[in-house]
Structure formats: C-alpha cells, structure tokens
C-alpha cells in the first residue's frame, strides 16, 4: 500500500477570525479519510508563531497561552522546498547537547485561516513561492475576493446584481472624519434617500466590525469602529426586510462549477453580526466542549433549502454564484452570500468567502446530490494537488533563451 499523504491543516492565524478558524481547521482534520491521509495540525497563534502537537486536536486546549505551551512544538516552514523535494516543517528543540533540528515532512497544506493573512491570498502566495502544494483558491482569486469593492465591480461587469457602495479610507492619524465631506460623498453615492446604511470593513469576513447607522452621528460611530479593523470601509444602503441566503460552490469532476444547498441563516437581531453568527446559543467565554457536531458555522441556526425562494430567485442565486466562482477561477469549497429584500424579492450578491467557516460542509451534506464532509475533504485535497501540479511549467532560464551567465 502506498504511504499515506500527510495533509497539514493550517488554522488560527493573525486574524480577528482566529477562533472560528480553529474550529474549521479541527473539523477538517476530523473529516480526513484515515485510510488515505494522515492529518497534521498546524496552529498559527495570534502573534504569528506556528505550532504543532497532538494536544492541538483538543478544543479544550484553546486558547493557547504563551505560558502553557510545553506540549507543543514550534515550527518554521522551510521555504527551500523546490531544492529539497518533499515540503517540510523544521522544529528546533533544545537538549543537553545543544539545539536539535527535526524535520516534519508533509505533502499538502490546507489553509483554514479565515480573514486576513490566510484567506486573502497572502498564505497562498507564500506557498507559491516555496513551491508547496496547497488546497483551495489560488493567490489571485483569494486576494481579489477578499476586497468587497473589487469583487462587486467584477460582479457588475458580469451583470450580477450588487448594491451601490461608498468606499471610505481611514483618515490620517490625528485627523477626525469630516462630516461635511462625508455628507457630500453619501449624497453622491446614494442620492437623497441615504439612511439607514450598513458599514463594514472592506477586507474582512464573518460579519466582524459590521454596524448599522440611522443618522450621521451613528454613521461616524460605526465608521470609527470599522476603521479599527480595516483601513478601507464600505458603506452600503441597508436592505429593508433583509433576508440572507448563502450557497457554496465547488468544481465538479467534469470541470463545471456546482452549487450546494442554499441556506437562510436565522436572525434575531437587525443584523447578523459576529456575536449572533458564532456565539448563538452558547455562553460567550464558557468552556468549550470537545465535540464536533455543533459548533462554529454549524451551530448557527439555519434553514436549509428554504421553500420561500421562487424558481427564478433560486436560479439567480445559483447562476450568480457559479459565474463569480468561474470569473475569479476559484477552487475548494467557496461560500457566496446574498442579500434579499423579503418584500420586493430583489436579490444582491454580497460577498465571497473563499475559506468559509466549517468549509460550508453542512451545505454540501444537504445538497440535492449530497456530499459527505469526508468526500468534500477528499475533493479539496485532490484538487489542491492537481492545481499545484499544473501551475507553472519550466523555470529554467535556458528554456526561454534568457541565459546570461555561462552554464557548463
């Protein structure tokens, strides 16, 4: 029997979505086929340090404190992989005879880091430089879809319905927001009917930093909060009678984009913010159980395959999602979120999550042709190997006649 491929699942990260990512990463590891793959947990702490160790697979181990990490091994990623064959992590352990270096080889990295420094193409770029096979979206698709304004501009050019927006840049240090200038910008973007509006960071997901404003004062407050998280902030009109719909897309074996079941997340508050998205039904700060079935995006109350959608609405959601997946040449399991005015029935594309919480597996398990998370992880892993293998041709200078130095 061939040796099992070692799949390094990288989670945590320097991101406000660090904790959600830990759950997604552990869920992915738990859904890897033990007959084909050997999972390797790789945790990036909020300081950006990389760790591995069996203890990481237990939810009770989090948060990992700097004073309590004796059971973990600190890693560094060897970027010289192309010269040395199989990718590897390096670990350094102090012993009586000095520092000992150990190598931990692996075959593929699965990025499970949500938000900045993971979902935004930066981690993917690092893998490309090092020639390390990785799963999911490539650098361009991951980076482009992280920017909500850029995503919407591409969607517009593909005739996909999106809301108008106003993009604001963080004021320079020591400078306050200029209310008069803001008023002018708001009028230019939205006309006379301006409020209420939704304020959200341009480059974050998971509804972190999202706020609603009914007046100029509230808008300034919401902007200040959002600027703490991102230098660019988007203001959009608030959709009345708001209902959200999400759908996941992946590439089928025939190369066509396939969409999953559609979900309608439950909403208690006016707006789906981080607290009711991820902490619904659990006490914030309470001990985490070491269970896997109901947590993260999975614990969010939702209606799968909602019956109120008309055939044309469902078609719009599916077609738009598949089109945007193709436009950005995405990969893996991507969740695409839509906004709907429950009364008028109009639907707008909202955002694209290239590494969605829990890899959106619950949407695949509820699809017309159900796909178990076990089969989904296999698809994501196999696709990652294929995409990384196809990436570039020869990099030898001689192949393009670009040699300057004499080679013997």
């Amino acid at each position, binding site marked *: 029997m061939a040796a099992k491929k070692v799949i390094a699942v990288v989670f945590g990260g320097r991101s406000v979505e660090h904790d959600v990512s830990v759950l997604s990463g*552990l*869920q992915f590891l*738990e*859904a*890897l*086929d*033990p*007959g084909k793959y050997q999972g390797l947990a790789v945790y990036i702490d909020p300081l950006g340090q990389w760790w591995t160790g*069996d203890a990481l*697979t*237990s939810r009770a181990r989090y948060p990992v404190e700097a004073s309590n990490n004796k059971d973990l091994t600190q890693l560094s990623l060897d970027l010289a992989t192309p010269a040395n064959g199989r990718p590897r992590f390096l670990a350094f352990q102090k012993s009586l005879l000095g520092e000992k270096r150990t190598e931990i080889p692996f075959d593929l990295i699965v990025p499970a880091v949500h938000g900045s420094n993971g979902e935004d193409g930066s981690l993917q770029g690092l893998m490309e430089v090092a020639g390390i096979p990785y799963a999911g979206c490539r650098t361009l698709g991951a980076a482009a879809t992280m920017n909500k304004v850029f995503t919407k501009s591409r969607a517009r050019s593909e005739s996909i319905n999106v809301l108008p927006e106003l993009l604001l840049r963080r004021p320079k240090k020591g400078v306050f927001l200029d209310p008069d200038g803001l008023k002018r910008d708001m009028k230019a973007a939205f006309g006379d009917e301006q409020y209420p509006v939704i304020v959200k960071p341009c480059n974050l997901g998971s509804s972190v930093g999202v706020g609603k404003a009914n007046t100029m004062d509230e808008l300034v407050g919401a902007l200040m909060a959002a600027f703490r998280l991102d230098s660019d902030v988007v203001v959009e009109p608030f959709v009345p009678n708001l209902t959200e719909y999400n759908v996941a897309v992946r590439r089928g074996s025939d190369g066509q984009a396939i969409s999953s079941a559609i979900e309608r997340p439950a909403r208690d508050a006016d707006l789906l913010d981080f607290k009711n998205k991820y902490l619904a039904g659990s006490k914030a700060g309470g001990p985490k159980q*070491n*269970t*896997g*079935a109901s947590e993260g995006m999975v614990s969010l109350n939702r209606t799968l395959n909602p019956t109120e959608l008309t055939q044309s609405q469902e078609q719009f959601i599916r077609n738009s999602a598949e089109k945007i997946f193709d436009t950005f040449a995405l990969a893996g399991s991507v969740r695409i979120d839509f906004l709907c005015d429950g009364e008028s029935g109009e639907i707008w594309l909202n955002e694209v999550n290239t590494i969605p919480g829990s890899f959106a597996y619950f949407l695949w*398990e509820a699809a017309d042709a*159900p796909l*178990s*998370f*076990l089969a989904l*992880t296999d698809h994501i892993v196999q696709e990652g190997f294929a995409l990384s293998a196809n990436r570039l041709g020869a990099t030898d200078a001689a192949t393009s006649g670009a040699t300057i130095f004499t080679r013997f």
Partner: protein
Amino acid sequence: MAEHFIWRHSNSGGGTESFVWLHGWGYTRAGFQRLAALFQKDGHNNIFDLPGFGETPMLFSGAGTSDYADSLAAQLDKNQRHIIIGHSYGGRVAIQLAAKHPKLVKAIILIGGAGVPRRRSIPYKVRAAALKILGKLARISDQLLGTEYRQAYTTRFGSEDYKNAGELRGTLVSAVTENLGPVAREIKCPALLLYGDGDKEAPPEIGKRYETLIAVSRYVELKGYDHHDILTRGAYQCEALIKSFLKDLDHE
C-alpha cells in the same frame, strides 16, 4: 414474550443493506443521529432505543445482554442478514446477537464496545475486593441492625451509571460483571472494532482482546478520540473506516 415486545426505533435511508444501530448505556437512539445520517445512501437504517432507554420500556428486571439479543432477534427481518453497529453496551448486545443468532448477522461493528474484563493493577484489585466486602457488610448491617449504610456506600463509591440505573440496576450489574470472551469466540461473521485511544470507559485493550477472540476481525485505534466524542467529532473517521470495511466485505 419477546415476540410481542417492540423496540422503538427510527428508520431512514434506503437500499438493500440493513444497518441496525444499538446505542450505549445512558444514551438513546439520538446518540447515533450524527453518524447514522452518513449512511443514508448506503442502506436502510434502523436506529433503536434499547429496552429501558428512550421510548422503549424495560424488558424485565435483571435482563442480561443475552436477553436483549434474543428480544432484538425476534423483531429483525428473518429474510435478511443485518449489519449490527453497537456503541459501548450496544456492542455487548451485538456480540451476543452475532453468537446466538448468526443467520441474522452479516457483520458487527463495535465502536468503543465493552464486554471483556480489563487488566487491572494489583492495588486496584485490592481496593475493589475491599469495597465489595464493605458493601456486603453494609447490606448485612442494614438488614440486621436497621442501619442505612448501603445507601451511603452507594453514594460514596457507586459509579454514576450505577447511581442513575434505577430499575435497570440489575441489568447494569449483570453486564459489568459478565465476560463475553467465550461468547465472542463463537462469532463467525466479520467484525470491525473501532476504539478511541483516549477511551477510559472501553479502552483499546478491550478492542485488542476482541481482535484475538473473533476469528475474522479488524481492529482500528482512532487517535485523539474518547468513548463519547468518537460518535460526534469522530463521525467522519468512523464513516470512512466503516465504509472501507463494508467494501472489503462485498469483495470477499
């Protein structure tokens, strides 16, 4: 009696294969909700509430695993051979069923299945023997002198399961004191044995023991799972291992 006794169950899925799910002590059929859902496409799933649990009434006072197996056999489709999946105590019933009613069983799958004695350290054995004597003395004292030592003894030294067993106490005592080793030897059908390496209730040594006892068996230890979370966060690991086992069954 057994013919008229119906075990409450939910059935789902479809296909030619028949899966029979038997939960562990203190659980109900809801304990298999996550895992059984992954086998909807692979066959017909009957997920039972064992007698005394969930919606199924008690069988009779002091009923043992063998009685449970006979009662279950009476209501399984006789024209088919079933795949029995048992967790913990459900594993004991699966062992009994496979040994006593071989014509009904195609294969058994134990997940943290109990039933053979664990190796214990000498200090543990000494303590257990002392406690047993103490329990007997408490009972004698209660009977002769009207004291209430037995209840105090149970509160102090009884396991959670024992304290909560209520009318099923006789069934629980007969289960924890029985050794299914000789019964397991009689099993002719293939068995898959899944054990979490962090399982304290039914540790891997039990699975390894069953592997030596059952003629055609496959033992797999799942790293990082315990007796309970093997059914939830370990569901996909179990799914993969069970499906590859079933595939091999069909090739034999």
